[in-house]
């Protein structure tokens, strides 16, 4: 992410503080709005084709979906630990936890590719039917966000190794972490919606 934190985050009088950069939060909100519209579109499109959606939802691999939920939540948890380590000035722990978080993201991508390979191998595409259109669109759009999140984590890791972050400045780290948690948050809604709810 681009560094926009020339000014430290303003402390509000009540002592309440927004972690990270204001700009990243606007960005997160916009992304979440896009997903909200997509989720609602899925739900309402399903209302018109309940049987079709229920039939094809059965073909999805719930085990891999749940495994991916574990990976993202754990990845998010490691990144929280990295931020906490920064506030305690535990420098080696920042980079280590970021790396572990990144590996969880990598695991997510591998699982997702295995899942895609099975589906695409069976000749399924976005034009097969509306359910698969949504399944592929939503998960792929989210997939791209995982990749972007991992790019951000990579930058944070490099910076952390240089010793940029600590209790004096965790601004950039918090901004990147917030984005990574958003990727997690979106999957927490996406997984039950597309894989389980019927």
């Amino acid at each position, binding site marked *: 992410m681009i560094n926009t934190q020339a000014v430290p985050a303003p402390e509000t009088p009540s*002592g309440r*503080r*927004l972690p990270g950069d204001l700009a990243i939060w606007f960005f997160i*909100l916009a992304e979440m709005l896009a997903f909200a519209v997509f989720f609602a579109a899925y739900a*309402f499109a399903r209302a018109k084709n309940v049987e079709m959606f229920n039939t094809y939802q059965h073909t999805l691999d719930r085990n891999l979906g749940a495994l991916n*939920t574990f990976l993202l939540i754990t990845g998010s*948890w490691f990144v*929280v630990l990295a931020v906490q380590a920064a506030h305690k000035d535990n420098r080696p722990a920042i980079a280590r936890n970021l790396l572990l978080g990144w590996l969880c993201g990598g695991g997510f991508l591998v699982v997702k590719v295995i899942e895609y390979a099975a589906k695409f191998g069976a000749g399924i595409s976005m034009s097969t039917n509306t359910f698969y259109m949504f399944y592929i669109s939503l998960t792929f759009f989210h997939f791209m966000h995982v990749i972007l999140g991992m790019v951000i984590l990579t930058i944070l890791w490099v910076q952390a190794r240089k010793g940029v972050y600590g209790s004096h400045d965790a601004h950039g780290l918090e901004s990147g972490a917030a984005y990574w948690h958003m990727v997690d948050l979106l999957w*927490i809604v996406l997984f039950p919606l597309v894989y389980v709810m019927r």
Partner: protein
Amino acid sequence: MELLKNPAHRAWIILMIATVVTWYLGEVGAAGTTSIIAMLLIAFVKGRLVILDFMELREAPRMWRILLEGWLILVSSLILLAYWISLT
């Protein structure tokens, strides 16, 4: 139990358990109004933990908490509405 003082650890454990519950509901083929509401509630609790303990918005200016939690409520309500329409 020293570990549980860290809200992030607590959140992680609850998130893991909640995920297993959702997965289990899928395995037993739960369907219909009750299971939909249950799954949406679980998703809401999970999302809220991510927002408050992972994104660390618990101590953030109130507007940001409202915006993100509001997003969760909005999305869950829209999904619930659409599923309710499909049942009638």
